[in-house]
């Protein structure tokens, strides 16, 4: 079992947990992910690592409730435990294996969207600890959904916060903020974008026009996370890649986002049913859709 030593609700439907998993904490690097499974009946859920503490043997995860399994995860309290917690999986971010002096010469910008802020954080933190400057644009739909602003403030060279509705910071999306900075004369030669697929797609569209190489972190449907099932396959530059072993980071200008977004919706009906079952418990069967519990 893997105990939860800290639990915080960061925003509506977004939770942070520190989980004791010494084997994972020992060798994990920014960019890698874990798979968690709440109990016997739960799904295997891939989550990108948000932070780690090698000495305490803990991993920080941040997740948003989207289906039955993540909803049940949100019910867990400090002191409860995950039945399974495996990792680190996938490849570490390319940034950390680059020559540090070369890296220091680069002008790097991160664009984080929604819960994608969590996997951006350890990369920015790592760069900060290694004396590398980088700017961060992070955004969400509205002020109440912003997460990790204070943490990011401490490690980003320049932090630009955006909200789609203008309730906090820059009024607009990450792409609008990047364009605005570019128009002011800012220049970048490396971009890392992590967030919903639709956001990464539009960031890549813009950075392609601007000529800025862009890395994205893909989060498709996965089962085992070790290369065995192929559920997470996606097209990158016309080749089939497995996000779990070849990624999760890829050259964003080569990813076929439209197909990846379609594939991500593959089990939407089943997930909806599982959610209904969870919420209605034994009181309803079949789910009429007219009952409002919340």
């Amino acid at each position, binding site marked *: 079992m893997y105990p939860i030593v800290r639990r915080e609700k960061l925003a509506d439907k977004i939770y942070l947990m520190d989980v004791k998993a010494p*084997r994972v904490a020992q060798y994990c690097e920014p960019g890698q992910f874990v798979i968690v499974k709440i109990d016997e009946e739960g799904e*295997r859920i891939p989550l990108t690592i948000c932070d780690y503490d090698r000495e305490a043997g803990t991993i920080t995860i941040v997740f948003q409730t989207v289906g039955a399994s993540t909803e049940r995860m949100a019910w867990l309290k400090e002191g409860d435990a995950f039945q399974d917690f*495996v*990792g680190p999986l996938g490849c570490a971010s390319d940034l950390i294996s680059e020559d540090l002096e070369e890296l220091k010469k680069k002008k790097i910008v991160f664009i984080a969207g929604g819960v994608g802020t969590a996997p951006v954080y350890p990369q920015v933190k790592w760069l900060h600890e290694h004396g590398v400057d980088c700017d961060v644009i992070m955004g969400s739909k509205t002020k109440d959904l912003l997460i990790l602003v204070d943490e990011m403030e401490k490690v980003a060279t320049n932090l630009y916060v955006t909200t789609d509705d203008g309730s906090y910071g820059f009024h607009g999306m990450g792409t609008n903020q990047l364009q605005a900075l570019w128009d002011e004369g800012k220049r970048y030669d490396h971009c890392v974008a992590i967030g919903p697929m639709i956001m990464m797609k539009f960031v890549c569209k813009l950075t392609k026009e601007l000529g800025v190489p862009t890395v994205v972190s893909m989060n498709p449907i996965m089962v085992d996370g070790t*290369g*065995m*099932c192929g559920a997470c396959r996606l097209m990158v530059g016309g080749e089939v890649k497995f996000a779990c072993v070849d990624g999760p980071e890829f050259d964003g200008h080569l990813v076929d986002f439209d197909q990846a977004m*379609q594939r991500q919706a*593959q089990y939407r009906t089943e997930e909806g049913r599982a959610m209904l079952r969870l919420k209605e418990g034994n009181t309803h069967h079949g789910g009429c859709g007219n009952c409002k519990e919340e």
Partner: protein
Amino acid sequence: MDVLKKVPVREQEPQVRAANFDEVCLGYNEEEAMAEAGRCLNCKNAQCVKGCPVSIDIPAFIAQVKEGNFEEAYHIISKSSALPAVCGRVCPQESQCEGKCIRGIKGEPVSIGKLERFVADWAREHGIKPKKAEQQNGHKVAVIGSGPAGLTCAGDLAKLGYDVTIFEALHEAGGVLIYGIPEFRLPKQKVVAAEVENVKALGVKIETNVVIGKSVTIDELMENEGFEAVFIGSGAGLPRFMGIPGEQAMGVFSANEFLTRNNLMKAFLEEYDTPIKAGKKVIVVGGGNVAMDAARTAKRLGAEVHIVYRRGEEELPARVEEVHHAKEEGIIFDLLQNPTEILVDENGWVKGAKVIKMELGEPDASGRRSPVEIPGSEYEIEADTVIMSLGTSPNPLISSTTKGLETNRRKCIVAAEENGATSKPGVFAGGDAVTGAATVILAMGAGKAAAKGIDEYLSK
């Protein structure tokens, strides 16, 4: 009783079992087992033993069954096999022990597999465990993977007194026995979990959720955690696809994904969260045991299922029994046909496949007649799900993170057949990681050989 014929084994009726996940074959009872054991000729120069990759003393255990000494029969099997309840169910006996049985020259061979299964089931039901080593020798050995190769190697080493830890990447021990082979062929809780418990009863520790090459490397295990030898039994790994248009569409799955969702994640049970899609009409591409498993699983989930295989019936690589069972359950075989394109609807979902008819030409390198397309014979079939069951290729996770570990051009780990030794001192390997996808019992044979190899290496 006709001595030329096997005592028939009871099975669930095809129409009934095609709608449930309970075990198809019900096995022998005590009377049936003793009657079948009576057919054994107890040959002095027993050919059956030579046909068994782990060399079970078959005539000796059958002689005990004949007398009703089932516990003694179990201990005889246990000396050679850690997983008799599994092997009795999934070994291709027709080409191994039973294939060599002298009784089978005229009439049917002794039903060795069903007898082995009976003995193992009887022992489990009567709480009989394999015997633990009397003394520990203090040497630490790591085993990577808890599939048939790993469990066998670990069990054999534990019996010799080694301190063995198995590292398993998934959340449950058993490897392909858990994620690959379906419940109706190999019950998970009753059979697999019980045999894993037997291996643990020998003193073997199992650490799940550890991905070697990611969580920790082999070099780190040997340098930092005190393991003096390592056995790699990590299995075959990555699923193959055909490389035809439409393969990325929604509704196209690898057999590995489909079976893992159903078997490991138990998607067929209402109370489990993991979803599975079988659709109304399923095409399974391929003709091996895995294809049969995927097809029969889809059938049980309520679909009409077609197996599309590019060669003919005789060339089907699946066991005869599996093909027979699949047909009985209503799986439709579209033989000598091959998909050339997956047809996709406007929303990105599979709506069918373009299929071309084939004929058999000259034998290829494998000795099988190679299929040749018949020009102009293409036609379209409807389907909402396509399951690709084309075999697997090795996962590079371990070979790419272990210094000095040699692989061949197929990316399989190179290991000596007789003792599993690899190019790296102290590191041994066996099973699908070495041979590419094969059978449970061959992996067990390799695990056994490697246990011997490791014992010799550490006794030097």
